[in-house]
């Protein structure tokens, strides 16, 4: 009904203009869905006692076998496990009194962080292109 009423006021040039703008918009949405998804790739970041940072793209963790990453620290070697888009501290050193990092379990998205205070290791996930927080006007 609305369309029929609207039809009275639009000539064919208007319709051509509107349809081409809509098409461009839809194409843009599709394009950006593909283009920006690739940019928003997740990476696991492992930071050790010396401040050295190891980056592993999350998509590289899919496979048959879990990835085991040994990380050196002041009280021994911690073993980080990355598997199918998730990451956890598999084994904290024996001398770790509380094993908090082991108890944190798996993380799979930006936000939570695995921290091992005695061994000075931090593990988190972030977007590869994490500059744009938000905008308003």
């Amino acid at each position, binding site marked *: 009904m609305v369309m029929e009423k*609207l039809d009275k*006021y*639009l*000539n064919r*040039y*208007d319709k051509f*203009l*509107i349809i081409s*703008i*809509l098409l*461009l*918009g*839809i*194409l*843009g*949405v599709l*394009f*950006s869905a593909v283009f*920006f998804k690739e*940019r928003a790739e997740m990476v696991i970041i492992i930071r050790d006692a010396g401040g050295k940072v190891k980056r592993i793209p999350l998509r590289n963790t899919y496979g048959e076998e879990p990835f085991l990453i040994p990380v050196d620290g002041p009280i021994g070697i911690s073993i980080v496990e990355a598997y199918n888009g998730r990451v956890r501290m598999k084994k904290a050193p024996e001398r770790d009194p509380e094993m908090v990092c082991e108890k944190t379990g798996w993380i799979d998205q930006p936000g939570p962080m695995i921290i091992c205070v005695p061994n000075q290791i931090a593990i988190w996930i972030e977007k590869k*292109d994490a*500059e*744009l927080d*938000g*905008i*308003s*006007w």
Partner: protein
Amino acid sequence: MILDGYLMKSIQRMIIIALLVSIGLILHFVESMIPMSFIVPGARLGLANIVSLLALVLYGFKEGLLVLLLRVLLGSFLAGTFMTINFYLSISGGLLSFFAMSLLYYCFKKKFSLIGVSVFGSTFHNIGQLITAYWIINNPGIFYYLPYLVLMAVPTGIGVGLVTYFTSRYLLSGSYRRF
């Protein structure tokens, strides 16, 4: 008191332009109370666009530009946003959209109706705003919103175009034809 026709006309024109500017300010205020940004950040109804398009139709390019600039300037003075990001976004979008609308209105007058002109204008409003926003925050990620804003511009542009069409048809017809 006898006023000659020319003086009468110029006073009337001045008053109508002042009325359009004040209507534009109120429309801008009203549309800022309607939440649209939850659909797409930065999305607007563009109601204030009605008055600049109306001035363009009733008087011409110069008067339309005057209404637009006065509206944006006065609006930013009243809201206290003069020379801030809001002001730049508003004026860049407004100017680009106005130039796009004038181009379509003058060069293809016989082809496009006011609705087509308005849809074109609201699309360019968003493009102008995003280009300025890109200059300010310097991150190409902002163009992610462009297609969504363009899709939003079509229905809002049709609405603005219909309002302008009916208003101008009324004002230019019968006993009101004094412009």
